């Protein structure tokens, strides 16, 4: 049986997931995690803890041993199209995300891959750009934009696909304080199940309902942001302060 029936409130279910890089380095070590719908979960941990590797498993870009389910659908080759429509990944470096000559084409890229009609694509593009406050940037080249603008457009390229789950990899790293604050507010307004990968304690406290701490490819703690962010010993042990 391909689809294991589970309660629809579960957005992400990860069971005993392990992954090693081709060079043999172990990146994930039997990770177990359940994320409920409309929850915002922060994933924290030092560099190299396996946070981004975990994110790449959520839509099947990487696949290790173990089970990953998105909205009850197992992530495997056969289901990739559905899974990638449900999971939106926003990468850390906007120059990786934005590859098209114009903003409009980039935001339309996902909807076009979803085989929407031209009118639906246009609609999805203008709605996503309006959501991130970047109307009027349609014909600009991504290279001409500021870092903060690129980050917003990156978000729009995923929002235009209308994903159930948004995975944001280091959404506010390298941003100036105002850009950071505005971007955090924007993230807070998104209506989706959100996974926020970060080592920004303050942001975690602001937007997350729950925090998972990872270190050396394992989940070491799972709890409320206020508890975890005030546990100095824990933060210190895992290189977060």
């Amino acid at each position: 049986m391909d689809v294991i029936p589970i309660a629809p409130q579960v957005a992400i279910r990860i069971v005993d997931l392990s992954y090693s890089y081709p060079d043999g380095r172990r990146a994930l070590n039997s990770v177990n995690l359940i994320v409920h719908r409309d929850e915002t979960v922060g994933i924290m941990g030092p560099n190299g803890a396996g946070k981004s590797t975990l994110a790449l498993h959520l839509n099947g870009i990487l696949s290790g041993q173990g089970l990953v389910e998105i909205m009850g659908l197992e992530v495997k080759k056969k289901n990739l199209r559905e899974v990638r429509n449900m999971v939106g990944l926003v990468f850390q470096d906007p120059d990786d995300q934005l590859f098209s000559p114009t903003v409009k084409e980039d935001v339309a890229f996902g909807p076009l891959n979803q085989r929407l009609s031209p009118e639906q694509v246009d609609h999805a593009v203008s709605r996503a750009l309006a959501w991130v406050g970047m109307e009027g940037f349609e014909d600009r080249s991504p290279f001409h934009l500021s870092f903060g603008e690129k980050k917003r457009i990156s978000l729009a390229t995923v929002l235009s696909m209308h994903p159930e789950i948004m995975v944001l990899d280091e959404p506010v790293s390298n941003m100036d304080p105002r850009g950071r604050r505005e971007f955090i507010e924007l993230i807070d307004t998104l209506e989706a199940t959100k996974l926020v990968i970060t080592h920004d304690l303050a942001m975690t406290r602001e937007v997350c309902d729950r925090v998972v701490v990872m270190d050396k490819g394992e989940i070491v703690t799972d709890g409320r942001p206020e508890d975890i962010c005030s546990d100095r010993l824990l933060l210190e042990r895992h290189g977060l302060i």
Partner: protein
Amino acid sequence: MKHDFIDRYARLESPVHALDPRAKTIALFVIIIACVTTPPQDWWPFAIYGALVLIIANASKLPTSYLLTRVLVVLPFLLVVAVFVPFMHEGGPTFDLGLFSVSRDGLLVLWNVTVKAIISVVCLIILSSTTPFSDLMRGFERLHVPHFFTTVAAFMYRYVFIIVDEAERMKRARDSRNFRARWLWHARVIGYMIASLFMRSQERAERVYQAMSARGFDGTYPRWTESKMFAADYVFMFAVAATAIAGRLAVLWT
């Protein structure tokens, strides 16, 4: 960092900018082909091509200084040809210029190269400067240029400056540590830089591909806007092409 884009003036408003990329591409390539195939003995067909190009350039509202500086790219090639002119002695009367003498055929070669190079280059400058790069690529695709080429060109347009920036940062970091060029190990350091630039680009390509896959990319590039050719596009295309071809054919009959 600030970069000079080839389509810096592509968003001006002018009759030439408003034309469909396909109409511009075809019209300007007809001029180029007519021009390079015309024998150099007759000067007046070149006057026709030149006039056509000047009229289009003028209508395009591109700054003259911009056009002139762009035309300078042909200068090195012309100089190479010019250097050899004194050595071409055969054909026609020779003119004594004191230090050396030039033959009529030698000058004809120089004229031939100069006029053809300049007219062709101006055509390409007009095409690439009045059309946003993405529209140009889409126009090429509609003219059945293989997707592979247009996609590679589009990626290059997008990423070449990021790579240049990366190289520039690396160079600054290197120079800050007091790097001075001395022959042998200079070459080695440059080699390391190129290798590391290559590795970084490779890694970036990997990440870009991941980001594309995450948005459902399955190897085929989706398109959705269909641009239309209007009457004005056809009029421009046929008028320009017909004039250039007329100039070319007239040479055959006289």
